[in-house]
């Protein structure tokens, strides 16, 4: 393997996809962040199950909850984008369909995240 690479390619360490370990690393970083965020979110929702509009609104409006919710949503959609991207890469082998789907996944996750964050800000501000 080493002999097949140019010295520059070896130093860059980016491999054939030109991306190195960036995808894998970001998946891990977001995964680690999502563990405490998920536990916090689920524990909070359990307490909110029987609450009315007013109580749910007040919960999201509380600054610490708003910050953690924005982190949860943004980290979550990033992690989702990385995961679905690999599913598409694994199963779709027609280039045009694959590229189109990857774009839809990226746009969709960005739109989803932004909608969530805007909703939180509208409640909290």
């Amino acid at each position: 393997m080493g002999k097949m690479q140019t010295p520059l390619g070896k130093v860059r360490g980016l491999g054939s996809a030109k991306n190195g370990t960036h995808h894998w690393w970001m998946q891990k970083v977001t995964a680690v962040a999502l563990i405490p965020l998920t536990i916090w979110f689920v524990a909070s929702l359990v307490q909110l199950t029987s609450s009315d509009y007013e109580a749910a609104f007040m919960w999201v409006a509380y600054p610490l909850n708003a910050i953690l919710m924005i982190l949860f949503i943004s980290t979550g959609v990033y992690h989702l984008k990385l995961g679905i991207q690999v599913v598409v890469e694994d199963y779709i082998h027609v280039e045009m369909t694959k590229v189109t789907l990857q774009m839809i996944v990226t746009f969709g996750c960005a739109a989803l995240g932004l909608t969530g964050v805007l909703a939180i800000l509208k409640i909290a501000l």
Partner: protein
Amino acid sequence: MAKKERPISPHLQIYAWGGHMALSIFHRASGIALGAGTLLLIWWLGSLAMGEESYILFQTYMSSIYGKIVLFAFTTALMLHMCNGIRHLFWDAGKGFDLDATRRSNYLIFAGTVIFTAAIWLLGLGLIGGLS
């Protein structure tokens, strides 16, 4: 590319199914399901931001039997994906990679998923009190 028939290596159907194989595909399936779950989460936040009327509509959908089934599936997928994801992080660190450790962690993940999901719903429905 050459279209000539070439011998191919044995694929999935040739191997005996094991817990690790089940968890591998469950991880992917639950990940996709959580994508749909994210839509629900955004709907919840959106309805909350749009006012009481839309929030009540959301609550009406979610408290129906179909809504509860969807939420239960969401919870199960979330717990499975989190438990198995934690194992992936251990694997990435080079720990628990041999067959015996993997068999043990299979049980831990299945048990964790069932226990956490059950705990969330029992607490959420107020059956074992305390939080609500």
